C-alpha cells in the first residue's frame, strides 16, 4: 500500500506514507493501552513538525496500533506531579496547545478510531478535521475526567459542545459516560461508521478528499435541527436554562461534595458567554484549580488503587487460576439470583438451586428482571439477552452440580444450615471444585469444619444488589490454597468486580466495620436523636444513604443477628444498641417487611418518611435530643475507621489500600474522601486519636483507639502527609 516509507525511529509512533497521506500509528510500548504522556506527546509533536514541513504530504490519518483500544486518555501519573493550581493550569495549557496544533495543521488530520477513545484521546479526535470510527462493541467515546475530580483540560469543554451540541456535551462531560459507536454517529460526535477491516482504507480516502477539498472539515456543519434545540441551545436565555438545570442536577446528585462537574459547567459556559479564547483560558484555569483539590487527590488515589488491585492476583506470587466455566449456586434468593445474573451476563453456565420450585421461580424471575433491564437500556441485544437467560438452569435437587468448577453458597445466614448444605454439596461436586460461601458474618473456618476438603473452601462475599455493587470481598482461611484463592479472585474480576482478599474473622472486614458504623448510629438513637437528622448528617458527610435507612435496607433482623455474632466475638464495644433490639422485638424488620424505622409503600416498596410511631419503642420515647451534626458524623465515621484499623492490625486486612477500596466500593464510604485510611491521613492520625480518646472517655468501652492508629500517630502521619 505505501509508496514511500520515510524511515522513522520512534518508540511509540510509526509512520507509513500512502500517496501523500501520512498514516501515523500510535502503539505505546509495554502498555496494553495507549495513554498520552509527555514522552508520547513530544514524539508526536516532532512527527507533526516533519509532516507539515514535507510538501509531499497533504493529509494525515491517525490510528492506534493496539488491538481494541484507541487512546485511553492522559497518563494519570502526571496528575500526581501537580503541586499547585498554576502547575495544573500549565499542564492543561500544554495539552490545549497540542490540540490547537492539530486543528490548525496544514495537513488536515483524520482520526480513525477503533476501541476506547477516552479523555485526551477524544479531545484529540475532536481537534481533528474528520472522525471515523468502527461499528464495534468495543468502540466507545467518553470524557471521564470528572470521575477523577478534574475537568477535560485539552479543549474538550470547548470543542465537544461545538461538535455535538450543548446538552449532549454537558451530559457526556458531567457524567463521564461511555458513548457507543452508533450513538456517537447519531449525535454527530463521529462522522462515519465503518467495519474494522476497512477503517484504514476509508480513513485514507477521506484524508485525501479533505486535502483536495472534496469534503469539508467536520464540526463546522450541521447543528441538530428542531425547535426545542434552537430555543435551548441557540439563544443565550435558552442556554441559561440549560446551564442552570445542569448545575441543579449536579448539586442534587453530589450534595456539593464534588466541585469538578460544577467547574466543568463554568468552563463550558465561559466559551459560550465570552468567546472561544476566554473559554480555553477558563478551562485551563479551572483544570488547574481542580487538580489540586482534596477530592481530586482522593479520586486519583482510588484510581491507582483499583488499577493496582486489578493486577493483584490475590496471593502475591505467580499462580495460574483454574478455568471457571460453570458455577453452581445454592440459594435462589436475592443474593443467589443476583450472582446468577452477573455470572450469566459474563457467559458462565449457572446451576441455581433452591428448596422448591416456588423459590427457584423467584430466583429465575429476579435474574430475568436484571437482564431485561439491560436489554431495555440497550446495553445488550435481544439475542444476548436470550442467550444469557438460557445459561441459568434452575433445579430443586443437585442435578447438574456434578461438573461445576465453583459453587457459591448463598443460603440463609445460619451456621448449621450452611454446614449441612456444604456436606450435601460435597457429595456431588467434583473433588477439585471450589466451595465459596457468600456469608456476610460467619467465619469461613467454622463453615469449613464440615468440609472434607477445607483447602477448597473460602468466602466470596458479594454485595447487594450484585449487578450494581462493584466490590467482592474474598475471605481466605489458614488452609485455603493459593490456586483456590487466585481462581476466586480471577473469577471475581471476570464478573467485573474490584476484588480484595481478606483473612478470616467474624464479620471479615466490610461487615465488621459497617456494623461498628451502624451500631454507633443506633447508640445515637438511644440517646434520642431524630432519625432523619441522623441520616441527613451522614449523607451530608458523603455516604449515599444514612445508617438508619441502611439498617432498614439490610433488614433489622439481619442486623440484630450480625450484632449478636460480633458481640460474642469482640465484646461490649460492638454491642448492638438498644434501639435496634427493641425495634426487632416489636416485629419491625425493615423495608422488606414494609415497616422499620421508616415507612414504606409496601413490603419492599418505596421509602416514605420516618415512622414516628417507632419513637415510642426507643429509650427516650417521644423526647428528641439534639446532637450537633459534626458529632453525629464523627462518632459514626470514627467508629468505622477505628474498626478498620483493628482489622488491619489483626491481619484481617492485608493493606490500607484494600481497606480503602473495600469501604468505598462495598459499604458506601465517600469516594471523595478516599477511604477510611485515607481519611486518617488527611485528618491526621494524632487528630483522630485525640477525638477517639474524647469519645472513649464518654462512651467507654467504645472508641478505644486501635493500636494501629496509635502507631500511625507515633510514626508522625500527620496532616498534609504526601499522598
Amino acid at each position, binding site marked *: 500500500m505505501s509508496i514511500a516509507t520515510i524511515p522513522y525511529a520512534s518508540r511509540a509512533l510509526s509512520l507509513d506514507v500512502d500517496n501523500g497521506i501520512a498514516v501515523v500509528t500510535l502503539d505505546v510500548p509495554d502498555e496494553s493501552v495507549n495513554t498520552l504522556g509527555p514522552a508520547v506527546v513530544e514524539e508526536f509533536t516532532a512527527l507533526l513538525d516533519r509532516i507539515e514541513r514535507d510538501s509531499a504530504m497533504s493529509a494525515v490519518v491517525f490510528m492506534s496500533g493496539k488491538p481494541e483500544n484507541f487512546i485511553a486518555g492522559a497518563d494519570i501519573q502526571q496528575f500526581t506531579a501537580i503541586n499547585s493550581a498554576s502547575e495544573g493550569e500549565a499542564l492543561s495549557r500544554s495539552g490545549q496547545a497540542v490540540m490547537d496544533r492539530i486543528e490548525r495543521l496544514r495537513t488536515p488530520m483524520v482520526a480513525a478510531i477503533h476501541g476506547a477513545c477516552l479523555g485526551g484521546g477524544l479531545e484529540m479526535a475532536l481537534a481533528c478535521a474528520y472522525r471515523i470510527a468502527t461499528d464495534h462493541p468495543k468502540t466507545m467515546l467518553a470524557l471521564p475526567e470528572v470521575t477523577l475530580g478534574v475537568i477535560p483540560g485539552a479543549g474538550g469543554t470547548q470543542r465537544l459542545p461545538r461538535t455535538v451540541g450543548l446538552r449532549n456535551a454537558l451530559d457526556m462531560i458531567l457524567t463521564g459516560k461511555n458513548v457507543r459507536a452508533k450513538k456517537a454517529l447519531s449525535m454527530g460526535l463521529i462522522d462515519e461508521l465503518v467495519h474494522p477491516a476497512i477503517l484504514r482504507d476509508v480513513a485514507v480516502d477521506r484524508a485525501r478528499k479533505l486535502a483536495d477539498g472534496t469534503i469539508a472539515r467536520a464540526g463546522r456543519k450541521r447543528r441538530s435541527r428542531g425547535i426545542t434545540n434552537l430555543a435551548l441551545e441557540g439563544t443565550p436565555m435558552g442556554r441559561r436554562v440549560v446551564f442552570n438545570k445542569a448545575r441543579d442536577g449536579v448539586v442534587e446528585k453530589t450534595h456539593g461534595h464534588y466541585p469538578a462537574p460544577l467547574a466543568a459547567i463554568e468552563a463550558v459556559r465561559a466559551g459560550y458567554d465570552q468567546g472561544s479564547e476566554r473559554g480555553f483560558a477558563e478551562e485551563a484555569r479551572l483544570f488547574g484549580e481542580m487538580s489540586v483539590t482534596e477530592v481530586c487527590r482522593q479520586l486519583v488515589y482510588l484510581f491507582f488503587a483499583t488499577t493496582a488491585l486489578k493486577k493483584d492476583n490475590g496471593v502475591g506470587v505467580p499462580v495460574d487460576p483454574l478455568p471457571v466455566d460453570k458455577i453452581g449456586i445454592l440459594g435462589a434468593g436475592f443474593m443467589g439470583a443476583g450472582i446468577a445474573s452477573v455470572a450469566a451476563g459474563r457467559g458462565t*453456565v449457572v446451576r441455581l438451586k433452591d428448596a422448591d420450585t416456588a423459590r427457584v*421461580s423467584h430466583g*429465575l424471575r429476579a435474574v*430475568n428482571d436484571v437482564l431485561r433491564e439491560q436489554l431495555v437500556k440497550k446495553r445488550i441485544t435481544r439475542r444476548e439477552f436470550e*442467550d444469557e437467560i438460557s*445459561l441459568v*438452569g*434452575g433445579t430443586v435437587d443437585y442435578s447438574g452440580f456434578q461438573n461445576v468448577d465453583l459453587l457459591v453458597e448463598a443460603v440463609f445466614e445460619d451456621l448449621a444450615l450452611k454446614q449441612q448444605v456444604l456436606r450435601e454439596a460435597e457429595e456431588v461436586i467434583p473433588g477439585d471444585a471450589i466451595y465459596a460461601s457468600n456469608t456476610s458474618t460467619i467465619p469461613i473456618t467454622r463453615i469449613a469444619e464440615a468440609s472434607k476438603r477445607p483447602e477448597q473452601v473460602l468466602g466470596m462475599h458479594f454485595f447487594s444488589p450484585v449487578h450494581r455493587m462493584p466490590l467482592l470481598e474474598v475471605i481466605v482461611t489458614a488452609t485455603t490454597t493459593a490456586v483456590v484463592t487466585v481462581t476466586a479472585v480471577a473469577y471475581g474480576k471476570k464478573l467485573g468486580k474490584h476484588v480484595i482478599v481478606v483473612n478470616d474473622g467474624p464479620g471479615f472486614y466490610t461487615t465488621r466495620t459497617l456494623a461498628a458504623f451502624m451500631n454507633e448510629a443506633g447508640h445515637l438513637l438511644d440517646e434520642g436523636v431524630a432519625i432523619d437528622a441522623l441520616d441527613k448528617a451522614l449523607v451530608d458527610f458523603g455516604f449515599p444513604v444514612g445508617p438508619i435507612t441502611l439498617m432498614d435496607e439490610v433488614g433489622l433482623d439481619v442486623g440484630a443477628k450480625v450484632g449478636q455474632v460480633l458481640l460474642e466475638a469482640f465484646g461490649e464495644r460492638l454491642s448492638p444498641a438498644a434501639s435496634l433490639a427493641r425495634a426487632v422485638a416489636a416485629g419491625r424488620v425493615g423495608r422488606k417487611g414494609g415497616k422499620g424505622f421508616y415507612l414504606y409503600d409496601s413490603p419492599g416498596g418505596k421509602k416514605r418518611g420516618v415512622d414516628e410511631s417507632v419513637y415510642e419503642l426507643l429509650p427516650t420515647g417521644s423526647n428528641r435530643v439534639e446532637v450537633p451534626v459534626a458529632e453525629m458524623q464523627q462518632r459514626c465515621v470514627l467508629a468505622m475507621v477505628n474498626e478498620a484499623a483493628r482489622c488491619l492490625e489483626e491481619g484481617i486486612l492485608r493493606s490500607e489500600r484494600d481497606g480503602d477500596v473495600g469501604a468505598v466500593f462495598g459499604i458506601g464510604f465517600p469516594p471523595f474522601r478516599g477511604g477510611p485510611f485515607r481519611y486518617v491521613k488527611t485528618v491526621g492520625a494524632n487528630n483522630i486519636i485525640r477525638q477517639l480518646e474524647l469519645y472513649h472517655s464518654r462512651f467507654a468501652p467504645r472508641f478505644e483507639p486501635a493500636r494501629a492508629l496509635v502507631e500511625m500517630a507515633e510514626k508522625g502521619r500527620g496532616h498534609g502527609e504526601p499522598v
Partner: protein
Amino acid sequence: MATYGTNGRRVAIVAGLRTPFARAGTDLSSLTAQELGRTVVAELLQRTAVEGEEIDGVVFGTVVPSVLAPNIAREVALLPMLPKGIPAYTVSRACASANQAITDAADQIVLGHSNVLIAGGAESLSNIPILHSRRFSETLVRASKAKSAGARVKTLARTRPRDLVPITPAIAEPSTGETMGESAEKMAKLNHISREEQDQFALRSHRLAAAGTQDGRLTAEIMPFYVPPKYEIVETRDNGIRTDTNLEALQALKPVFDRRYGTVTAGNSSPLTDGAAAVILMSDERAAALGYKPLAYIRSYAYAALDPGEQLLQAPVLAAPVALRRAGLSLRDIDLVEMHEAFAAQVLSNLEGFESRKWAERAGFSHPVGEVDRSRLNVMGGSIAIGHPFGATGARITMTLAHELRRRGGQFGLMTVCAAGGMGFAMVLEAA
C-alpha cells in the same frame, strides 16, 4: 439377524429429557418452538454434564416451521454453552419428524462420521404462522419494490378486502384434501372400529398416564418448566392428562369429523399440544470413554409409506415387520410396545393390521406381525392423554420406551409412529 451398528458402531441412547406437554393455548403458549427446543436442550446439557466440545451435531424435527428461524436445530446448536462450530439441520416427516431426527443422527454414528449428537423435536401449535393470501403477498412485494412513495401507495391501494383474509393452515393432506381426523374416521369405518372401543382406548390412555404421573415414572423424564418472563407458572406435568375422566364423559362427546355416522371425537383423538423433547445419542465406544451408561441401543428402524388416500395412518403396519426383521426378532421377543396414538381409531386399526395376513403380504411377509399383548402396550398411556406436539412426539416415545424398558428389566422394545402423508415408522430398542 441384526445389522445396524454391528460394525462396532452401536448407537446408544444415553439420556432423554422433555418439557411438559401442554395443550395449545395454555401454559406454554407464549413460547416458540425454538425457545422450547433451546430450553430442553440447555437443561439436558446441565443435567448430563456433557461437554459442548464433545457434540458433533444437532438434528431436530419440527412440522410447522417458523418462517423467521426455519432451521430450529441450528438455533439450538447455537446455545451459548455450546461451541459455535456444531453443524445442525432440521427435518420434517410429519408426526415422525423427531424419529427422523433420531435415525439421521444414529446413522451418522453408524457411518463413523460422528460420536455424539443431540436429536429431538419441538413444536408450538399455539404459534402457527398466519399467511397472507397470495394476492396480498404479491401486492406487498410489489409495494416494497416501488420506486417512490407515490407508486407504493398506488400499489397498496389496489388491495381489496377479500385479499386480507388470511390463510390459516389446516392439518389436511395436500393430495387428498382430507384432514387427519377425516382420515381417522375413514379408517374407523373401514376397519370396523366402534365408538365404544375408541372411547375405552382413550380412557385407558388417560388412566395409565395419570398413574404414571402419580407414581413419578412418566414425570421422571419431564423437566420442570419455569415459564418466562414472570415465572409465576411452573409446569411439572403434562396438563392434558385427565385424572377425572370416565367413559360417560367420553361418550357424551359429539363426533367431530362426521356429524352423522362419525365415531372420532375430541376425546378419543390426540390434542393440539406444545412441547419439545431431546435425546443424546453416542457411539457405544464414546459413551464408555466418557463414562456414560447407555439407557438402550437402537437395534433397528424402518420407514414405510402408502397412498394417503387409502388409509392415511396405517403405514406403521408396513414398517413394523421390516424393523423387526432388521432386528432379527419377532413380536414374541418384544417386552414393551409404544405406539403413537394420533387417534384411538388409528391405534386400534394399526393393532388389527398387525394381525392381518393381507397387510403382512403387502409388506412382503408371509406371516402377520402378531397380536400385541395389551399389558405391554403404552403402559403409561399415550399421545391421546399425554399430548402430541407434532415434531416432538417421536423423541418422547423413544425416551419413554427406553426408560420403562430399563425399569421393567425388559430386553427389547418396539415403537411405531404414524405420520401424515401416509407414512409410518417403527424402531426396535435393545436394553443396555
